[in-house]
């Protein structure tokens, strides 16, 4: 077991860092925040074609590069550092993982190469207006109709749901509850009966949409797994997405710590840099402790995901819970340490604060994940 990144993985990180420095600067992020799509097509094309990030963990037989989740979390962390606005998380960490966890090889061959090259933007339409993250939250229905299925319901908080060409939709067989009867369908966004509407969200760096399904007819071969038996695949997809999001949170938290420390050294008050005051020192020390612990948790979870071992189901909620708290706390302290300037629109502190909040809540907050962890270890 080796937790250190290899020299090659460090090179990947370096390459990602220099790309993001140029293409995910504060100015770029703010530009993208103002758009409805929320991402720069040209930058996304380069990420797909030149840098190959979406292909990293997708197996070669499905058009990917066949590397592992460790490489994926390394770039996720870097993306979190600069708040990259892109459909990476939705397409790769949600949709591609769902397809990979499913058993439908034909769907994998059809859709994964497009996701790997960045040509296909895809997402997972799982949550609903009830805002619940467990299987109970799924109330959309899938009714068998002459060999096809008819989907009905409303999906909400769907990341990039208004720009995705492919939706992985969770719906349940009527009359079932909980983890029973859940199915996943690959639904092209232009299928009749599918409509989407961009949502107004606090975190403008990551767009969300509401998707309405009205008698959407899909063939049975759009099922990712056997009908009604998708919960294990969906649950694991959510674990994998949580691990990726945790890594992204680490990157963001680290940036908050870095900017806080930098500012504490140069901002002079009462004739001394504010970093020399205990009140600020202690804040920075607490942030460092949290960032380091969060990083260890996220890396460990990334390793468990890469190994696809049984620990994933426990370390994923652990990492998501810890990293959510850590990022939000660091983002909030970052504003405090910056004082008045930290409250201004021009300073980036609020961008990280908002991303920290949306990431904290997405896939379930820390309390939800601690409960999930308790259940999974049999407490």
């Amino acid at each position: 077991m080796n937790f250190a990144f290899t020299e090659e993985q460090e090179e990947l990180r370096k390459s990602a860092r220099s790309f993001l420095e140029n293409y995910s600067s504060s100015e770029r992020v703010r530009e993208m925040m103002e758009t409805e799509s929320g991402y720069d097509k040209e930058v996304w094309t380069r990420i797909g074609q030149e840098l190959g990030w979406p292909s990293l963990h997708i197996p070669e037989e499905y058009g990917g590069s066949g590397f592992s989740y460790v490489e994926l979390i390394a770039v996720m962390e870097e993306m979190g550092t600069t708040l990259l606005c892109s459909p990476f998380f939705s397409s790769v960490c949600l949709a591609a993982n769902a397809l990979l966890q499913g058993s439908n090889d034909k769907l994998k061959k059809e859709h994964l190469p497009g996701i790997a090259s960045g040509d296909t933007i895809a997402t997972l339409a799982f949550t609903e207006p009830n805002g619940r993250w467990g299987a109970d939250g799924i109330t959309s229905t899938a009714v068998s109709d002459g060999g096809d299925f008819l989907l009905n319901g409303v999906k909400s908080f769907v990341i990039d749901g208004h720009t995705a060409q492919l939706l992985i939709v969770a719906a349940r067989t009527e009359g079932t509850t909980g983890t029973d009867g859940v199915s996943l369908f690959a639904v092209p966004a232009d299928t009749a009966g599918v409509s989407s509407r961009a949502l107004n969200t606090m975190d403008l760096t990551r767009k969300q949409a509401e998707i309405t399904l009205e008698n959407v007819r899909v063939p049975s071969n759009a099922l990712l797994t056997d009908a009604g038996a998708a919960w294990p695949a969906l649950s694991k997809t959510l674990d994998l997405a949580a691990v990726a999001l945790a890594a992204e949170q680490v990157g963001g938290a680290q940036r908050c710590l870095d900017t806080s420390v930098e500012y504490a050294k140069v901002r002079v008050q009462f004739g001394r840099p504010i970093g020399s005051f205990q009140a600020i020192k202690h804040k920075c020390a607490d942030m460092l402790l949290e960032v380091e612990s969060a990083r260890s948790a996220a890396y460990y979870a990334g390793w468990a995901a890469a190994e696809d071992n049984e620990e994933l189901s426990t370390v994923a909620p652990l990492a998501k819970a810890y990293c959510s708290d850590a990022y939000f706390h660091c983002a909030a302290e970052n504003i405090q340490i910056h004082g008045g300037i930290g409250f201004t629109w021009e300073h980036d502190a609020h961008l990280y604060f908002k991303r920290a909040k949306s990431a904290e809540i997405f896939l379930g907050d820390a309390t939800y994940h601690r409960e999930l962890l308790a259940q999974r270890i049999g407490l």
Partner: protein
Amino acid sequence: MNIVVLVKQIPDPAGPSELEDDYTLDRNCKLILDESDSYGVEIALQLRETSGGGEVTLVSMAPNKEVSGIRTALAMGAEKAILVTDDALSGADALTTAKVLAKAIERAGDYDLVIGATESTDGYVGTVPAAIAELLGLPSVTFAKKIEVQEGKIVVQRQTEAGYDLIEAPLPAMISVTAGVVEPRYPSFKGIMAAKKKPCDIIGVSDLGLDVSAGWGQEILSVEDAPARAAGEKIEDDGESYLKIVEFLENKKII
């Protein structure tokens, strides 16, 4: 089209740096690709792609068999590398470096073009490309910002203060490129992994048939800190301070 690119591996300019007893830079640390060389690598890769074939060979001189910086350039897409590494070269001056690199370039096989940076980020001597051209008997074109290959010759835009000169030279030629003229590509993980398997020929001075035991005609006697910037002049703005600025610029004969 076969192109040789000179790449220097230097201590990270962002990190702390130390001097050796002979006042040369301590290079016994992890070295990285000099950013100013990444432009030459990018230009070489583009020229190779346009010409539809050939190889890009990297030539480097560094202590301790250091290949980290070379790997970065290989990850970008170069095919192979030659590294000269020899304790005898520690502290070598620019002319000796040029002699070593010229011999190493000859080892690279047939080439149409040799590309280097204008100057390195750690030494800033800036004479190596021209010295190599002389040693190899090649035409030397410096400060290139754009290179186009035509039938048996190159057409180069040579950057000047006012604009650029258009220069033609027969092939093979030695060209030094200015920093920032192209955007060096970002290595993908596939490229990074492939770089691990690309050939890197590590050789010493004797393999090149050179003898540097006589040393070089350069010795650094002392190193001084750059003088601290003198304090500026503060002017309280009474609404007329722009006149002071105009006066200042006039005195400097800027306006």
